[in-house]
């Protein structure tokens, strides 16, 4: 049973449910968090127990992941600290192929005995299921890398920054928002450290130390008289960086259209909270949108989610093949479209790359969770579908010999499978700023930051909201709008992309919690883009009365 399910079923304290995510592991103190549990030599010895046990039981392939997953959440509201929570989850997952079938076992008993038992369970499951297996698993070749280590290139380890410093920063941001008239503010710093040791029966022993950081807030404005309320979320991005992301360097600030301030590789949470309160007031007073066709100018803090849903997911090969048919769904990007080599996914200026190496991105690692070296590859080139996202047991179906290196598991206790790498829209080749882009639009909407999102199970029909909506009239920003959502068909939408700003405007955004699989697993992924323009998109009005 997943911890979160049991918490709900057994009715544990409401406090446990206040965490932004549950099921992360047990709570620990900071000193314990910073102390390594075991060294690489011990991990190798334990991994070898699994490799030898599986081999003796007849497994043809085995991999072992000894993982220590650390999280820290510092949560506040208004002028109060709500909680400082450190969690740790430590254990081992063993995956085997026996009789041509996958089996998986996991345990938090990280001893030779515990690992042996988990391995025996994995082999037993593989053998039980092999009776119903139609085709044996075929793995693409992968070199043996020997003993290797890698770490996210961070400047400051967030876990080593004193808790007081984080609390003070959040309370300073909250105070700014409240001083500027906010009714409520919730803020959070969320840190992740995945210490992952991977070993396989093919001779790779890979030790990786992965860091992620996410500061976030929700500033709410309530107007009791009119009975309305609006929430402005932070313009931060979750990043594959250390605590240096919170330095808020002047060189990373961008003065955007409509008087907004945007952030690149570091973030000023205090300044943004002050802005948020001002903008939340304007959001309440904004004009309700007139539904119809508009030219949309989409800022990277918004664009990432549209990319994620309409490009990232349909190019996942497991969806195309039907492995996700019962949950996340399948894909409209069927094999025949790819094989034709001329399926026009988007306009000629639309180029998407998949990537697991981009510095500062959430997906960046050196090796994936089945020991494949990570890389970058094309998905959409000059508007045409050219490839998918695939791992070792899938690429042969594409007639390719090498895994793309995008296999991931959220923890030691879950089996690894194909997960989305960073998928990014390449910046435009012509020099173009967002202001120049807007100056060419007669009737449009400039949308900043992601909001509501929904897309069908084959990724044809989507609807997206946002946070800030600015009306564009005759090339100029003409005030704020509300109740805006756009609906489109994926292929029509990307073919309506007529301009993309140049690389000066390219920025990453993303999410910690992309969900897929059964049992469901979270994946952290970034999506980069520059501001882009889409012509004639259908906008609906979402205002209602209850």
């Amino acid at each position, binding site marked *: 049973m997943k911890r979160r*399910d049991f918490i709900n*079923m057994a009715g544990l304290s409401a406090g446990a449910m206040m965490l932004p995510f549950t099921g992360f592991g047990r709570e620990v103190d900071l000193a314990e968090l910073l102390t390594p549990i075991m060294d690489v030599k011990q991990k190798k010895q334990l991994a070898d127990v699994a490799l030898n046990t599986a081999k003796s039981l007849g497994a043809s392939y085995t991999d072992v992941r000894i993982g220590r997953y650390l999280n820290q959440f510092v949560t506040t509201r208004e002028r109060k600290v709500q909680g400082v929570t450190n969690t740790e989850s430590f254990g081992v997952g063993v995956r085997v192929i026996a009789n041509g079938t996958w089996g998986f076992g996991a345990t938090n008993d990280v001893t030779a005995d515990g690992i042996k038992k988990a391995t025996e369970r994995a082999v037993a499951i593989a053998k039980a299921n092999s009776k119903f297996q139609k085709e044996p698993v075929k793995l693409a070749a992968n070199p043996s890398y020997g003993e290797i280590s890698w770490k996210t290139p961070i400047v400051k380890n967030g876990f080593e920054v004193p808790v007081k410093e984080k609390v003070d920063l959040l309370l300073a941001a909250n105070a700014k928002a409240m001083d500027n008239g906010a009714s409520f503010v919730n803020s959070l710093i969320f840190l992740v450290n995945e210490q992952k040791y991977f070993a396989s029966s093919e001779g790779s022993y890979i030790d990786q130390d992965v860091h992620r950081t996410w500061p976030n807030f929700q500033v709410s404005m309530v107007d*009791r008289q009119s009975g309305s309320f609006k929430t402005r979320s932070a313009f931060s991005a979750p990043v594959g960086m250390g605590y240096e992301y919170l330095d808020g360097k002047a060189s990373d600030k961008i003065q955007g259209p409509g008087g907004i301030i945007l952030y690149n590789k570091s973030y000023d949470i205090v300044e943004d909270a002050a802005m948020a309160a001002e903008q939340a007031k304007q959001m309440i007073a904004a004009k309700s949108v007139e539904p119809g066709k508009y030219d949309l100018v989409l800022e990277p803090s918004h664009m990432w989610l549209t990319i994620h849903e309409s490009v990232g997911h349909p190019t996942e090969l497991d969806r195309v093949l039907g492995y996700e048919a*019962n949950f996340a769904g399948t894909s409209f990007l069927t094999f025949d479209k790819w094989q034709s080599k001329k399926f026009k996914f988007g306009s000629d200026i639309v180029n998407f790359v998949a990537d697991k190496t981009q510095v500062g991105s959430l997906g960046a690692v050196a090796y994936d969770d089945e020991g494949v070296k990570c890389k970058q590859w094309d998905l959409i080139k000059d508007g045409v579908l050219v490839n998918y996202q695939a791992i070792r047991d899938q690429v042969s179906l594409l007639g390719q010999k090498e895994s793309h290196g995008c296999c991931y598991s959220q923890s030691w206790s879950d089996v690894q499978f194909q997960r989305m790498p960073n998928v990014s829209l390449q910046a435009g080749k012509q020099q173009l700023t967002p202001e120049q882009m807007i100056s060419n639009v007669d009737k449009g909407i400039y949308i900043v930051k992601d909001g509501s999102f929904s897309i069908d199970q084959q990724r044809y029909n989507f609807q997206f909201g946002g946070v800030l909506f600015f009306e564009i009239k005759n090339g100029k920003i003409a005030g704020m709008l509300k109740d805006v959502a756009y609906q489109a068909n994926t292929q029509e939408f990307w073919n309506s992309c007529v301009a993309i700003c140049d690389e000066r405007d390219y920025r990453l955004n993303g999410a910690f919690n992309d969900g897929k699989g059964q*049992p469901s697993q979270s994946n952290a992924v970034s999506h980069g883009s520059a501001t882009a323009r889409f012509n004639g998109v259908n906008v*609906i009005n979402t205002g209602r009365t209850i």
Partner: protein
Amino acid sequence: MAILSKEEAKKILEKVVGYSKADGIEAGLNGGDGGNIRYARNSVSTAGEDSNVSLSVSVNFGKKSGAASINEFDDVSLEKVVRRAEELAKLAPENPEFMDPLGPQTYGPEAKTFIESTAKITPEYRAQAAADSINPATKKDITAAGYLEDNRGFNAQMNSKGLFTYNQATGVNFTVTMRSNDGTGSGWVARNFNDVSKLNTAEASQIAIEKALQSRNAKAIEPGKYTVILEPNAAADLLGLMLNFNARQADEGRSFLSKKGGGTKLGEKLVDERVNIYTDPWNEEVPTANQAGGLPRKRMDLIKGGVVSNLFYDRYWAQQKGVEPTPFPGNRIMEGGNASIEDMIKDTKKGVLVTRFWYIRAVDPQTLLYTGLTRDGTFYIENGKIKHPIKNFRFNESPIIMLNNLETLGKQMRVASGGGPGGGGSALVPAMKIRDFTFTSLSDAV
């Protein structure tokens, strides 16, 4: 080790509480074993088991609290975890909203949440359950993708005020999507039980196969407002999203339950007067623990006769407002009627039958407007009969508006409910016929 008996859990927790030198201590033990099998393309894709048990300790000095956990249970480790929490508490900032541990409570009887047969599911059982679903599909030119997950867990808590609780639970959840091999039809079915003996994956799979066959070559009809017949899973998808009646958010003015000009909608009519929704831990179909966070659960109305009957107050907010705290519900039950789906179809001149919804997301929290799509079996009804399958629709609708447009209530069914914080949980929800349901665009997805 993953399942401790009441006596074993009590013994460990008594030791832990005894080690504390803080003003207060709360200790919780929880653990479980789980197993699953997943199949797709008519073949098993992944399967696994997991097992975990841990002890969490929270102590306080005044309003400063600290928490720590451990998964070793020898005396030295038990004392260590208490000392560690105490050190953290001393360093922690004061939380003005901290509540002292709850004193002993009187609970109703244990609900029948733990079923031995479910606790004893084996990898072989799961493999056979998958085979029983895949084999009939292959005979009908259909491809099956499904998932079976079972779990057994326990939870115990004790504090320095003398409160002690212990609960055990089992559960099994099965879903399967059947797709016709020409790619034009898709059907889905879900089953959720405490007791695995009620599960028949062959029977359930047959329903999804039929839907896949019937839904082939769907026709497009214009989006707009339609009368819809929602099967229980579709109804529950939307219903679950409105039943988090958080009192604090309502009081603060940032909820659909906040009232214009101030105050909340507690005691006010929100939906059609035939809508009655309550929670009851002892309901035989959806039993749940007899307490939540130590607070005794009892039968409690959420909506009675269409009127908001109770809001959820946590202990801090209850104290602020001078009311009794509300134990968080472990299930939701909506009263149904006698009409079968067939009866409702017969009674419909023009409408849409919906198997399930998909990718539902909030659009506006103020009006509880949600968007999402129909999926895996959507049919057009004309003059009392299913006329033909139709292409899927996107909707933009609020469950509040939906329950104001209620036409007919059908029979109840147990469903897995994603509603409420933390997900999971189960609900008993009827099929329902709703008028003027808002579909805003068409989707080509099958």
